[in-house]
Structures are given as structure tokens and as C-alpha cells.
């Protein structure tokens, strides 16, 4: 015997002997490690992916100053507002043709810091390195008529030359070689910006130091990072607004807070996915740990006699712990690399499945840290049952004293007649109640999780699909001047566009709508109208309204403190009465059918609408206002969030309009004869119907913020003949697919890019991507449910297998006295039934109880949360399948045991 007997050799010997039993344990440990390392790894990948995507789409700056020539950034630095800044030097504004010389993009070169901060991410090629080279965003190339331009191709740009303050009317032509195509950043950043603003943000980049044309002077765009913004006091924020407010006259701020969503998966989607993943990771890791504790406990119970023997021959508690903990440690060391491998490639696969929106940027240290954590969890799970067992005396361990004590405590009385399997099951259940708890907890968690999961599946499936329309062409409403329709230099879509679109043969329906501003002339404002005027987004009626507004001074302030613009407009267009500003909108006749459910009063008479005799008034039935002193902002309440009424509002008023009321409407529009001239059109109309706030309507419906005057497109000619459509929503003739989408999109993009701020909303792709992410989500939910069920299966199987192994002698004895397979297996099946019964009872009970409690609280507390439906059948079926699988497995195990002779069963090993 040359080999030395050490704790390691003992542990390894035990492991080798119990290979089979340890396989399930190792699988469990690998799973636990995958959860503890894989999910944080996945979350970190998501996080880095978000950071990288955000960087690619928006850059790393906090703010962009579009015309930053006169801003003293150094002072901003000294004052502690700005930590650093960089500049883009604009040398021109490139446009496609003279007719639409307002459609195009700024051409600039970036200083070194700006390349870092603005981060023009290259899809292909490189940034310009020498004179005559150019890199551009793909969408800008399309806009400039170079949609098919390839790298290395020469392109000639027609550019307006800047004069140091703005782009002048002087133009020049320059020819460049295209060397790079960069990510479409401008569209993302300027999603909610007007063409006047976005015109200054460069999307075409030339070589560093390129001179502006002779006689011109470059414009500057600044990219700014705040100096530790999180620590700013409200006062400092206010001061900064003053500082940057001054710069508004010379530059427009684009704050990062606007950049909270981007193409495809939105930031909030990813965040919620991360939250869910974390929750599942924690639950799964806990469940796995419970499973491991259970497995180790079973394992040790089976080996209690062995432990007793070790104790009898003089092993100390520490040595006992050492032997068995060493086994656990060796097992976890075997499991760690496997789990790291699974996690790494699993996350890589998931990232790939989730599509191009996610970028796989692994932080491998998290995997190792997670696996390390997994090893600690496994060691803890092993020590939990090991420590008490190691403390028992040798004879306690050998004779199973606990068992005897428990039996005595129960004060069992003899049954005069009994069913052997039932009585045995009953006694075993009574004695092994504590062992059953872990299994029942895991079952209960599984049931709650799968009930919730199935409800989520049902809910998510109901969300698949898109509205009636697949594409939307729109441009954001913007106003040259408050209270006046934005006709100057503004072009929307016209009837010709609609006719052309319909003539392509792709579309079966086009819904066009117009949106502008209308003034309702009043001799006096009602209290309701005062709030409407504060909240309106069609013009600032009051000057600095939020500042110092209290319940007491509310009326005084809003009846006196009119803004400069308001007074100017009144004077300029000869208004003697007060102006109640409202949104003017028109839409196709057929659309009014859909609004029937939202009518609060009156009825919609299309003929009267078409004749201009009546209008439909969209007005919230209740409106309130709250001031946030920190931000000098106001918040309104309306029909869309009625529960907000509970908040402490400065003022709250009910709608003061009634059906049949006569309104004096006045619209200021460009003259059809001379687009530079504005004409005021007044009309007297009656309110035909009042609609409640319709913010829940679809994309294709114009949105309202204050109140809205709604009529048909036909009638809009009477009110504002020059007003173009600002949205056209299209429904395709045939079932749309990716191939057809790829044909239609470039065509629609061409139309949208031909007008300032024109944009395409691809609802087909949105729905398709949404469906894809829902499918991934569903797949995930099903995987998680299956995983839970698998863990449950393993735990139950482990518990009962251990019980069978422990009860091997008992099986032999029963066989010796004449029990057959039926009796023995039915005893175990009854124990299985009890485990499942408890688990199912607790699980379903908690789920239903929790659901009811949430529903009641939702009602009482008026949370107005959408409730998932109760889904019990699917979970019940899955649980039934799990039960059947466990039962079959159990019977097979008993059969396996009964293949041995009775003597082998009985014999003490």
C-alpha cells in the first residue's frame, strides 16, 4: 500500500463511488452557476450594448449647442457647469436642389475631441484624413441624392456658405471623394427637432481644418459635457438654465434627456428586460441553491452511517466537514469551467437572436466572478446540512436517533386495520415533513412563476401586430410664431402626394391629417380656459407662468402677465378680444366613425362639419395644474390620467364648453397669393360634439395637448386652405412582407426626405421587430418555466431517489413479507402526491391570493394597472406532466431496486 490516505483521497474515492448520484447534483450546480454568472454577464452585455448603441446614435455629450459661435464655454468651465467641450466647424449647408434648398445637411469638420465626444461611428470606410475626402451619414447621402454612392466615388456638393451667423444665400460647389459612411446620428438626435434647428447639426464630415469659401465665415457647433451634473443643486440647475438660456438666442440646446429612445429596442425595453433578468437570476439562483442544499442533505442522510463510522474511528467534526466539503469543492471546481463555457456562448447566442440592436461586448471577468460566487453558494449549500450532521455523536449517526425521537414525539397509535401503502406513505410524510419543505417551496415558486409566465405569454401574444396602417409619412408640427400657423417656409404633404401614393398600386388606403393652430376669441376667460391657456402647446400666453405661481396668486397672475409674443400677435393681427389658443386639426370623414365612443356630448354630423357650420371640440373633461418649483415646470391632469386628481393641484376645473356653444375662431395663415404674407380668417362655428381627451388614439390621429378644434379635411379648406397635411398613414393592398417592405421603404423615404422634417414611420417594421422581441420573450418565458420545472423534477427525483435508497432495506423487508411492486410503488406515489399537493396548494394559493389582492388593491388604490388574466390550466397541465414524469421515474427506480433480490435489498452494505 504505497498510496497515502489523505482527506483528498477519501473525498475523491467517495466521488468516484457515487458518480451516478453526483451527476444530477453536478447538473444542478452547473445550472446554479450559469444563473449566478450567466445572467449578470448577460445584463452587463446589455448594459455595454446600451452604452455603445447610445454612443453610436447620440455621442457622449450632454448637450449640443448648434450655433455656438458666441458662447463662452471657458466661462462655463470656470463656473463649474462644463467639464469639457469640443467643436464642429461648419463650412456649409449642402442641399440637393434649388427648389428644396432647405432640405439638406450641414457640412463640417470635427476637432479631435469632437471625434471622441460626438463619436461618428463608421459603418464602412474611415473618416477623412486629407483634403478632398468626405464621410457622411447614409441618410444624408440619400437626402442629397447620393443614395447609391459607393466608397471611393466622387460626389459634388452644392453648399450654402455660412457668414459666421447663419447660412447665407451664396452657394458654392465642392467635389469630394467618399471615404466613409457613418451611423445616422442626426435623425436620432433631431427626432423631435425642427428642420430649422437640425439644419445646423453636421451629418457630412470633411477633413480637419478645411477652410470655408472665401467671403464666408464658419459656424460652430459645440458638444458639451456637464461637470458632475448629478451633484448639482436645484439652484445651480436654475442658474445654469439662466446661463444657457442666454445662449438660446444664439444657439439651441439639445439636451441628452431627449435621447432616451432609439431605433428598434428602446432603452426602457432593455432596462425592463434587465430588471426581469436580474429578478429571474436571483430567483433561479436561490431555487438552484435550495435544490443543491436538498441534494447535499439527501446525500448526507444516506451516508449518515458512514459519518457515524468515521466518528467512531476517531474522525473529528472538522475532519468530517473537511472530507465532505472537499467533495463539494471538487464538484464545484468541475462545474465552474463548464458553466463559464455555457454562459459565454449562451449569452452570445441570445444576443445574436435578439438582433442587430444588441452588440455583444463581453465583460468576461463577470463570468469568472459569477462562477466564483457560484462556488461560494455551492460550499454554503453543502455546509448547511453538513454542519449539524457532523455534530451528531457516532451512535446517533449510526442508529438514526433523530428518526426514533421524531416517531416518539408523534405518539403514534397502532391501526387495527390499514392499507399498507397508505399507512407507510402517511408515516413517511409525517417523519420527512422537514425534508418536504424545500421541495414544496421550489414547487410553489415554479407554480407562481409559471402561472405568471403563462399570463404574460397570453398578454404578450395579444400585443402582437400593428394597427390598421403599415406606414406613416409625417413631419412635426412647428410654428414660426406663436398663435400663427407655421406656413412660412413650411411645407407638409399635399393632395398630390396622396394621389401619387395611391397611384403606385401598393396602397389600399391613405389617411391624411392636418394640424395647425387656431385662436378662439373670448371676451373673458373661464377658469377652465385659464388653465387651458397655461397648458397649451400652441403658444405661450403668459410670461414665466410657473415662476412663483401659488394657489393665492393664480388668478391674478394669469389674467395680467401676458407674454410678449401674445401681445405682439394681438397687435399684429388686430385682435381686440382675448385669445384662447387651441390646436386646429382635420382628418378624413371616415375617421370620425371611430370616435363615437369618445363623445361626451352631442353628435358628429359630417355634413355640418363639411359645411363649416359645426366643429368637434376635443377637450379634457377635467383639467388641473401643478407647479414643480424645482424645475419651474407645470404638470397637467386630464382624462387620460384621472387618478392624478388625487395630487395637490393648484387649480382644477371642469370643462366649461357645451354643445351648441358658438365659437369665434380665428386662424392666421399664409396668403395663397404671397407666401410671405399672413392672412387672418375668422369664422363663427357651433360646437357639434365634444370629445374627451383622445390621447389614446392611434398614430394616425393628430395629438392634442390643450384643447382641439377638429373638423374634416374638406372643411379645413374653409378655415385654412394653405395648411398642408402633416401626416399620411398608409395601408398596403396585399399582405406585406419583408421583400415588399424593402421596395416600398426607399420610395416613401424619398417622399419624406423631400420636405423639411419629413419622416417615415415604419409601423410594419416596428410590429415585425416587436413581434420578434415578443417571440424571443415568449421563448425566454417558456425556457424559464421549463427550467423551473426541470429543477423541480430534479429536486423531487433527488428527494425520492434518496428516500428509495435510504428505504432499500425496508423495500426488501416488505418484499419478504409479501409486498409486490404495486404496494411499494403506490406507497411512494402517495408520498409524491403529498409533496406535489403541498407545493401545488401553496403555489396556486399564493398566486390566486396574490392576484386577488393585487386586483383589489388596484381597484381600491386606483393604480389602474393592467392586469394579466389568470392562467391556471396551462400551469396545471404542465404540473400534471411533471407529476406523471416524476411518478414514472419513481416507479422505474423502484422496479430497478426490485430487480435485485430481496436479500440484496435487505443486506446492510
Amino acid at each position, binding site marked *: 500500500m504505497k498510496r497515502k490516505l489523505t482527506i483528498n483521497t477519501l473525498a475523491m474515492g467517495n466521488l468516484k463511488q457515487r458518480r451516478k448520484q453526483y451527476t444530477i447534483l453536478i447538473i444542478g450546480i452547473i445550472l446554479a452557476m450559469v444563473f449566478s454568472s450567466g445572467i449578470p454577464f448577460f445584463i452587463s452585455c446589455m448594459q455595454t450594448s446600451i452604452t455603445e448603441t447610445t454612443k453610436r446614435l447620440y455621442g457622449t455629450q450632454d448637450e449640443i449647442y448648434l450655433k455656438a459661435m458666441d458662447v463662452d464655454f471657458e466661462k462655463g468651465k470656470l463656473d463649474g457647469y462644463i467639464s469639457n467641450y469640443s467643436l464642429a466647424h461648419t463650412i456649409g449647408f449642402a442641399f440637393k436642389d434649388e427648389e428644396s434648398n432647405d432640405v439638406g445637411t450641414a457640412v463640417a469638420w470635427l476637432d479631435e475631441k469632437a471625434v471622441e465626444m460626438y463619436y461618428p461611428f463608421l459603418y464602412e470606410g474611415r473618416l477623412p484624413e486629407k483634403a478632398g475626402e468626405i464621410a457622411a451619414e447614409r441618410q444624408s447621402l440619400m437626402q442629397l441624392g447620393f443614395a447609391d454612392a459607393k466608397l471611393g466615388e466622387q460626389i459634388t456638393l452644392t453648399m450654402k456658405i455660412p457668414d459666421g451667423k447663419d447660412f447665407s444665400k451664396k452657394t458654392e460647389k465642392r467635389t469630394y471623394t467618399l471615404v466613409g459612411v457613418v451611423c445616422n446620428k442626426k435623425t436620432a438626435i433631431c427626432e423631435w427637432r425642427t428642420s430649422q434647428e437640425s439644419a445646423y447639426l453636421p451629418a457630412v464630415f470633411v477633413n480637419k481644418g478645411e477652410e470655408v469659401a472665401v467671403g464666408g465665415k464658419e459656424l460652430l457647433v459645440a458638444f458639451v459635457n456637464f461637470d458632475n451634473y448629478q451633484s448639482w443643486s436645484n439652484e445651480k440647475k436654475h442658474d445654469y438654465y439662466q446661463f444657457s438660456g442666454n445662449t438660446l438666442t444664439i444657439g439651441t440646446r439639445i439636451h441628452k434627456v431627449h435621447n432616451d429612445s432609439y431605433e428598434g429596442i428602446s432603452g426602457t425595453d432593455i432596462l425592463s428586460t434587465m430588471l426581469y433578468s436580474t429578478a429571474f437570476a436571483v430567483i433561479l439562483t436561490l431555487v438552484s441553491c435550495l435544490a443543491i442544499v436538498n441534494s447535499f442533505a439527501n446525500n448526507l442522510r444516506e451516508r449518515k452511517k458512514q459519518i457515524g463510522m468515521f466518528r467512531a474511528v476517531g474522525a473529528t467534526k472538522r475532519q468530517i466537514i473537511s472530507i465532505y466539503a472537499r467533495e463539494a469543492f471538487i464538484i464545484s471546481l468541475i462545474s465552474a469551467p463548464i458553466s463559464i463555457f455555457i454562459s459565454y456562448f449562451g449569452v452570445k447566442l441570445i444576443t445574436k437572436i435578439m438582433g442587430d440592436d444588441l452588440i455583444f461586448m463581453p465583460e468576461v471577468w463577470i463570468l469568472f466572478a459569477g462562477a466564483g460566487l457560484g462556488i461560494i453558494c455551492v460550499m454554503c449549500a453543502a455546509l448547511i446540512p453538513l454542519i449539524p450532521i457532523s455534530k451528531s455523536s457516532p451512535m446517533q449517526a449510526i442508529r438514526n436517533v433523530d428518526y426514533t425521537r421524531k416517531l416518539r414525539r408523534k405518539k403514534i397509535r*397502532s391501526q387495527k386495520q390499514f392499507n399498507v401503502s397508505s399507512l407507510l406513505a402517511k408515516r413517511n410524510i409525517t417523519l420527512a415533513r422537514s425534508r418536504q419543505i424545500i421541495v414544496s417551496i421550489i414547487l410553489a415558486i415554479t407554480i407562481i412563476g409559471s402561472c405568471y409566465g403563462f399570463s404574460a405569454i397570453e398578454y404578450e401574444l395579444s400585443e402582437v401586430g400593428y394597427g390598421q396602417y403599415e406606414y406613416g409619412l409625417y413631419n412635426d408640427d412647428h410654428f414660426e410664431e406663436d398663435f400663427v400657423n407655421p406656413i412660412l417656409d413650411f411645407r407638409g404633404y399635399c393632395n398630390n402626394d396622396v394621389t401619387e401614393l395611391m397611384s403606385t398600386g401598393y396602397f389600399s388606403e391613405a389617411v391624411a391629417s392636418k394640424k395647425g393652430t387656431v385662436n378662439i376669441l373670448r371676451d373673458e376667460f373661464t377658469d377652465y380656459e385659464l388653465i387651458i391657456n397655461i397648458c397649451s402647446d400652441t403658444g405661450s400666453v403668459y410670461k414665466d407662468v410657473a415662476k412663483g405661481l401659488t394657489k393665492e396668486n393664480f388668478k391674478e397672475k394669469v389674467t395680467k402677465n401676458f407674454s410678449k409674443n401674445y401681445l405682439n400677435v394681438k397687435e399684429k393681427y388686430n385682435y381686440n378680444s382675448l385669445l384662447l389658443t387651441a390646436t386646429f386639426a382635420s382628418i378624413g370623414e371616415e375617421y370620425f366613425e371611430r370616435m363615437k365612443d369618445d363623445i361626451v356630448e352631442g353628435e358628429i354630423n359630417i355634413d355640418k362639419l363639411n359645411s363649416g357650420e359645426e366643429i368637434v371640440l376635443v377637450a379634457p373633461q377635467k383639467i388641473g395644474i401643478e407647479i414643480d418649483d424645482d424645475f419651474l415646470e407645470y404638470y397637467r391632469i386630464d382624462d387620460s390620467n384621472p387618478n392624478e386628481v388625487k395630487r395637490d393641484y393648484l387649480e382644477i376645473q371642469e370643462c366649461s364648453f357645451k354643445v351648441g356653444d358658438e365659437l369665434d375662431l380665428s386662424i392666421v395663415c399664409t396668403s395663397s397669393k404671397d407666401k410671405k404674407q399672413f392672412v387672418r380668417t375668422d369664422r363663427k362655428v357651433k360646437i357639434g360634439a365634444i370629445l374627451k381627451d383622445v390621447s389614446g388614439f392611434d398614430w394616425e390621429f393628430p395629438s392634442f395637448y390643450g384643447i382641439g378644434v377638429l373638423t374634416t379635411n374638406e372643411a379645413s379648406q374653409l378655415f385654412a386652405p394653405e395648411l398642408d397635411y402633416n401626416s399620411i398613414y398608409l395601408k398596403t393592398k396585399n399582405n406585406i412582407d419583408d421583400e415588399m417592405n424593402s421596395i416600398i421603404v426607399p420610395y416613401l423615404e424619398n417622399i419624406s426626405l423631400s420636405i423639411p422634417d419629413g419622416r417615415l414611420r415604419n409601423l410594419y417594421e416596428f410590429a415585425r421587430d416587436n413581434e420578434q422581441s415578443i417571440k424571443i420573450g415568449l421563448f425566454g418565458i417558456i425556457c424559464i418555466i421549463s427550467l423551473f420545472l426541470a429543477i423541480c423534477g430534479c429536486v423531487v427525483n433527488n428527494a425520492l431517489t434518496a428516500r428509495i435508497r435510504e428505504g432499500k432495506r425496508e423495500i*426488501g423487508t416488505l418484499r419478504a413479507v409479501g409486498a409486490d411492486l404495486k404496494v411499494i410503488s403506490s406507497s411512494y406515489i402517495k408520498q409524491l402526491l403529498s409533496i406535489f399537493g403541498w407545493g401545488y396548494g401553496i403555489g396556486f394559493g399564493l398566486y390566486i391570493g396574490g392576484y386577488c389582492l393585487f386586483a383589489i388593491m388596484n381597484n381600491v388604490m386606483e393604480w389602474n394597472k393592467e392586469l394579466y388574466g389568470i392562467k391556471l390550466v396551462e400551469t396545471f397541465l404542465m404540473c400534471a406532466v411533471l407529476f406523471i414524469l416524476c411518478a414514472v421515474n419513481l416507479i422505474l427506480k423502484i422496479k430497478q431496486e426490485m430487480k435485485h433480490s430481496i436479500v440484496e435489498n435487505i443486506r446492510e452494505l
Partner: protein
Amino acid sequence: MNIIECKNLTKEYLSGENVVKAVDDVTVSFEQGEFCAITGPSGSGKSTFLHVLSSLENPTSGNVYYGGKSLSSYNDNQLSILRRRRFGFVFQAYNLVQELTGYENILLPVMLDGKKPDEEYLNKVIDMLGIRDRLEHLPSALSGGQQQRIAIARALANRPAILFADEPTGNLDGKSGREVLSLLKYVSKQLGVTLILVTHDLHVAEQAERILTIEDGKIVKDTKPAPSV
């Protein structure tokens, strides 16, 4: 009249790469009501012989006949029924079901058979074995001798034809061993049960009507000692 017999009974085991014949071509028969002791040195194969004879293990070859019918023709269920109705077993380690009380352990074969217990008979057995005050106890609360008495009562509960006892006194002290043995003898005689008992203790064997001596798996001696006075 023979109640059980075996012909050319062989039982082989694999011990590493070697085949060990624990029972080697044994042919023997037992008469109804007989008390037979099987004896031999340790490892001679006496327990294995008893196990194969009583259907607790399958023979490698040869046959066991109960009431003239070969046990090899019985399926698993039939063998279970046979064990619960016609055979009784007493083991050296008692093998009581730990979760059941003494009385429930005794009732096991009857309950497995789905019968109503014959209380009169059971009371008789219980009184004969002197375990009435131990019936409500769990096995873990009983001494070795008491457990073995419960095991004997269980073996007799279904009025078996044969009682197989494998070293029934092996785990007991001398006094308890003697008591258990006399009880076994007494009860089996009273109830007319055939008792086949394995022991390595010659003093125990000497109390039997017939002694089979096994060595290396073969019966080397079959003697009927004169009844002791």
C-alpha cells in the same frame, strides 16, 4: 409428506472475476411440521441456501418445489402472494418496518393480503410470544429480543406453512437467544408450522429434529438427532 423440496439447486455469485458457488447442486426435501436446522461454518452457503429455498433469491439452476409445484413457474406477483400467505421469515437483524408500531408490523402480511385480521389467532400468537405490552411501541423503542419476537409474530401472522429463520438468535444475548429459540420451537409446534432455521450455533442446532450440515455449498450431513428428554 414433503412440503418443500429442491432438486439440483445451485446458486452462483460473481466475486470479482471468479464464480463462487454458494449452493452447489443441492437436492433435499422437508416434511410438513418438521423443525430442521441448517448449520455449517461461516461462508459455507447455509444462509444462501435458505434464501434460495424461500424464494428470497432466485437459483442459478435447479428448482424449488412447494407443494409439488416448481417455484420457477411462479411470476413475481405469485411469489409475493406465496411469501405473504404460506411463508414466514425471521431475520437475524429483525427487519421490522421502522415507521410502523409493533402491532402494525405483525399485521403487515395480513394487511398486504387484504384480509381481516383473525384477532383470536393473533392474540394467541402474541400471548405465546409474550409481547402484548410491546405492541404499541415502535421498533426503535424495543430491545433486540423484543424486536425478534415481533418479527416472529409477524412471520406467523398469516398462518404460514413454513417458517424460515436466518440466524434468529445471532444478534441476541444468550438468554434472549434461548428464549427466542424456545418460542420459535414452541409456536411452530403449536401451530403445526414447518420451521427451517439457519444457525452456526451447534447448541441451537441440536434442538432441531433434523440437522443439515452444509460445507462449501453442499450438504455434507443430514442427521436426525435423538429427541432430547
